[in-house]
């Protein structure tokens, strides 16, 4: 689980991918996902994944990207099993190679989905993401909530550790006992954490109040996203490729293995 989280974290970098406008990167991720959605054929999905691998290599984040995919394995296996069992439960279905293959295809597609979003998160700062949301006319309140959530996650993680330390120092043993008693043992961890979050929110509310949050309807911004030539070129290339993919899928008679 934590390797999925790590795969979604941003690491600073200066590659050409990092420097692309975040909206373009978002679009590329979405297009890749849409391609994977349109096709079930293994070869196409493989092409999508290879493209993503290439992108991650150019962005020099290949190993972290690979780790996300690897870390998602339990989830993917779960989906595979769930889908397979679901198929079996349908009337008239029997255990056959075909049904196994179809479930595998579905799971494989999921890999492509996850992988494409991982690239986006690995090469975009939360700040850029915030700017992208603003540029896309998302009301500032939501962008702010989003950025705050990202910013305060490490702080809350530290706070959680502090609470665990304090309670362990009062003799709390989290590993002991059966499922029911273990859940109860988490109360001394969760209650203080919730109280902490509430208190922090209150103090933050005060702080943004004295900084005139919500004072004016048309808020200005220090930094703004601007599309560069590279962005436009990348954008056009991606859309062209995607159009070709649509064409092949829906309008041509080419069959794909």
């Amino acid at each position: 689980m934590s390797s999925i989280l790590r795969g979604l974290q941003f690491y600073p970098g200066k590659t050409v991918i990092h420097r692309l406008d975040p909206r373009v990167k978002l679009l590329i991720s979405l297009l890749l996902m849409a391609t994977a959605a349109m096709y079930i054929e293994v070869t196409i999905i493989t092409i999508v994944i290879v493209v993503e691998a290439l992108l991650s290599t150019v962005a020099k984040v290949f190993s972290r990207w690979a780790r996300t995919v690897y870390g998602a394995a339990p989830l993917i296996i779960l989906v595979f099993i769930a889908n397979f069992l679901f198929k079996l439960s349908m009337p008239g279905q029997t255990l056959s190679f075909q049904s196994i293959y179809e479930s595998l295809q579905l799971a494989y597609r999921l890999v492509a989905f996850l992988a494409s979003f991982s690239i986006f998160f690995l090469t975009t700062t939360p700040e850029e993401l915030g700017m992208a949301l603003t540029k896309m006319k998302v009301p500032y309140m939501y962008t702010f909530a989003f950025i705050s959530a990202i910013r305060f996650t490490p702080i809350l993680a530290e706070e959680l550790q502090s609470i665990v330390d304090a309670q362990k120092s009062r003799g709390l043993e989290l590993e002991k006992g059966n499922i029911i008693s273990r859940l109860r043992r988490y109360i001394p961890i969760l209650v203080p954490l919730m109280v902490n979050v509430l208190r922090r929110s209150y103090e933050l509310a005060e702080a943004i109040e004295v900084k005139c949050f919500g004072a004016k309807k048309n808020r200005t911004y220090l930094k703004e996203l601007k599309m560069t030539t590279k962005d436009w070129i990348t954008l056009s290339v991606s859309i062209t490729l995607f159009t070709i993919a649509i064409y092949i899928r829906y309008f041509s008679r080419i069959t794909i293995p």
Partner: protein
Amino acid sequence: MIIFENVEYIYPNGFKALNRINLEINSGEIVALMGENGAGKTTLLKHLNGLLKPTSGRVLIDGVDTRHSTVASLSRKVGIVFQNAEDMFFSPTIQEEIAFALNNFNFPGNVIKKRVDWALKFMELEEYRMKSPFLLSGGEKKRLAVAIILAWSPDIVALDEPTVGQDVLQKEKMIQIIKQANQQGKTIVISSHDVEFIADLRPRIILMNKGRIVKDGPCEEVLTDIPLLQECRIIPPQIVSLTSKLDFLGFKPKLARPEEVASEIARRVRHLVKYS
């Protein structure tokens, strides 16, 4: 008896917080760990009950190696009052909050009741027995945090920055509590950057800088070593700074009560003043 043998601690991110720490603290001592934020004081404290285990070297608490014990079992002997102890409350009443640790340590029911009563009395919180810990004032919360630890009567009590955000009356109270607990035979380890508070307490001082112990000795010796204090980014107590600047009156930097300094100044000045 606390022993640190060649202890080193490196955080997962690679930062070496403790570098070849060797120290011995005997039963019944009061010891202050001093140093700026980041010198390693809190890291060292967390080694006392096994929350952190040395990456090399070992820590012995009454002969028991912390690497081979659980935090719960070590905590029975070593109670740590953390800096933001108020952030650990979760019970509906103060009474239950204090009883929590006692339950974890498997104290028998009747003993729990007695210890809770004692702790409430000792920390002057009896009138709040059934109150919610969240409704206490800042100072009362701090007292509750100390009550919680003292309730199970650990042999060693460690306090991490006990005077942060407190006014002068609360600090005086804290000194009294520490002295009383020490009189009951407890070993006290305090991590603090409040020089005046430590100066009033007169403990043995272990001065840390960048993960190392740079001086270990009586309060009067450590707090008058002005060059070393400056190196460790610690501001000396006012009396020490004052006496060091009164060299023209024959003073050497020393730690003393204001009355003593005043009479010394008066004495020396009388030698020099020519009455007109």
